[in-house]
């Protein structure tokens, strides 16, 4: 389960590298800190780089939908560097704090939102084994971390000392607290199929053809995807659910009083969250980092066994074939998630904004009952099928050992599979 990019593996590698040079307590600390820093930097580049691209994409798509050209000047024909230019302009701006604002909370709130949004990336696997923190309850944890962003936004709106910001914050609070419920219930449906909260395991179980993706597992999962995507759009406050910043009513909503760098952190967090919720959708329903094509053994086999020796360490081998497969998988994952983000952008510039009461009605009267119904349906589906195949065993007995090992990606080599079955067993294996 530990690909070359997992913190644990890098930490162990560094420990092996340094073994001759230092004593063990120092060593562990240095290795851990270095590994953590490297991974934080990798994730930070994803966290910072993707929004830059999405903001450009949003302006371009919006322009095309409104029969304009969008940015065309900065950085060549398509305005590639527009976002960078905007970012440089924003950083130069004066950092204003209104007289009526609570300055401590006003200054800290953007960072709270940014940290929460960034922390969600920590448990988001990009490819098989490429994950910051291998958590047994990864899916639960990522939903929890995503829900923290709202707190930064509420505090920002409330501490601004402006009524527009206050209204935005109150709407945001009401909207988030209600939309978290259908989001969690919809996310439960594929997790129920997988029988695990570990996003790595969930991703691995969808290996193979497109028909193995959880969206095509049963009709309820199919509907749950659309329900989840609607709720996820609302939970990252995108139009038509962007009541917190409704610019036609509230000037700019919760970030009315913000400027410069702090304002751009809100923007960064919003676009990063769009990627995160889309990434969760891809992992839970759309096959994660899998291409959906069955790769013939002749091609997959040729990637195996490209092992090279790692520098500075004897005895540890680096599997180049698995690394290449993971690299492809990571790109597939980011592209799939980016397509969903594009869909969110498209929806934003197509549909008009709802009223706040319509937003609450949509959630409480429609989405919550629908998601509950879908969840019940997904629970009863295996019983309706009354199938005795292993794939439909009740989840309480744990995933059958074979179902995980038998669907290992042909790309990722044998060692990954054997380890993954031990994760899937998790607790029970320990107590025997």
């Amino acid at each position, binding site marked *: *389960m*530990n690909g070359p990019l997992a913190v*644990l593996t890098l930490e*162990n590698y560094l420990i092996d590298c340094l073994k001759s040079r*230092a*004593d063990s*307590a*120092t060593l*562990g*600390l*240095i290795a*851990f800190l270095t590994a953590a820093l490297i991974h934080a930097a990798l994730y930070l580049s994803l966290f910072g780089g993707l929004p830059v691209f999405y903001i450009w994409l949003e302006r371009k798509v919006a322009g095309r939908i409104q029969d304009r050209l969008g940015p065309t000047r900065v950085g060549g024909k398509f305005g590639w560097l527009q976002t960078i230019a905007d970012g440089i302009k924003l950083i130069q701006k004066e950092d204003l704090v209104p007289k009526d604002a*609570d300055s*401590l*909370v006003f200054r*800290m709130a953007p960072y*709270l939102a940014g940290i929460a949004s960034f922390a969600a990336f920590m448990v988001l696997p990009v490819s098989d084994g490429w994950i910051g923190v*291998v*958590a*047994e*309850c990864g899916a*639960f*944890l990522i*939903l*929890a*971390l995503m*829900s*923290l962003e*709202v*707190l930064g936004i*509420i*505090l920002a709106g*409330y*501490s601004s000392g402006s009524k527009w910001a*206050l209204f935005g*914050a*109150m709407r945001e*609070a*009401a909207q*988030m*607290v209600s939309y*978290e419920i259908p989001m969690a219930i919809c996310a439960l449906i594929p997790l129920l199929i997988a029988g695990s*909260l*570990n996003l790595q395991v969930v991703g691995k179980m969808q290996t193979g053809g497109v028909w193995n993706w959880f969206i095509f597992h049963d009709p309820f999962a199919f509907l749950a995807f659309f329900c989840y995507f609607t709720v996820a759009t609302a939970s990252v406050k995108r139009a038509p659910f962007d009541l917190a910043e409704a610019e036609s009513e509230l000037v700019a909503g919760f970030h009315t009083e913000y400027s410069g760098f702090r304002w751009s952190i809100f923007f960064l967090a919003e676009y990063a969250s769009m990627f995160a919720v889309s990434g969760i959708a891809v992992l839970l329903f759309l096959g994660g980092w899998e291409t959906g094509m069955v790769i013939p053994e002749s091609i997959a086999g040729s990637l195996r066994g490209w092992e090279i020796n790692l520098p500075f360490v004897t*005895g540890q081998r680096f599997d180049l074939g698995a690394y290449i497969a993971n690299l492809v998988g990571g790109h597939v994952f980011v592209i799939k998630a980016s397509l969903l983000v594009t869909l969110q952008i498209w929806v934003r510039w197509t549909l008009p904004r709802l009223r706040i009461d319509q937003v609450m009605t949509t959630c409480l009267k429609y989405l919550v009952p629908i998601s509950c119904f879908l969840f019940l349906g997904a629970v009863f589906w295996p019983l309706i099928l009354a199938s005795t195949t292993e794939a439909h065993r009740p989840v*309480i007995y*744990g995933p059958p050992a074979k179902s995980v090992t038998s669907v290992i990606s042909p790309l990722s080599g044998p060692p990954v599979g054997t*380890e993954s079955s*031990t*994760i899937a067993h*998790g*607790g*029970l*294996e*320990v*107590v*025997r």
Partner: protein
Amino acid sequence: MTYLLEQAANGIGGTDGLLFWVFAILSCVGAVAVVATQNIVRMAFWLVVSLGSVAALFFLMHADFLGAAQLLIYVGGTVVLLVFGVMLTASGHTIKVQTSPAETLLGGGVGLLLLCVLIFAISTVNWADISQQIPAAGDSPAIVDAREDASLAESLSVATTPEAKATAEKALAAVEARRQAGRTIRQLGLSFYGLRPDHMNSSANAASAPGYLLPFEIISVHLLVVLIGAAYLARAKRRVTPGSGTDL
């Protein structure tokens, strides 16, 4: 230089120790700041800092499900609810409801005394002895860890050939990875069904080990009651006109 680093690393207890001290200090500072500030919005902010650090402490104690639940329910739910309440009730004059200095001093003094009593109590008890006297209820994470450590150390020590040593080291790495991944979810989930997998192979009380099926059901009914009750209490009502009830 190396010596100093070594001393520092040993002093704070390695990686876990470093993280523990960071989050312990953050949570304590947050808690003290909640008490110290008079501004209700800042109290909410410091409460977030404190509760978030407590969640991190849960992760450090290998209670990953509980840590995530703390983040989702406490920080993402309860505190949002509290801030929502603050927004609905704090209008200008109620943002700062001052406590008189005498009361603050008295409260602080009594609090300090209470803290001294608690710290005295904690530090006088020899917890290692006491936990040895406890009849092992079952396979707690600590026991499983100790048993695994013992067996791994044994297999490492008897291994003479390089191959055997490599196998033992691989087993060690696998155990470490599994520990990092956490292993409480399934056990907690089964205990809410009334089964106790962590008690299964302790001979003493395998059958009588209590599950949590009944408390779990009671809590679910309780939540339903709370849902209805809170909706009933908070429903829109006639607002008292200013000046009729109070002098504010």
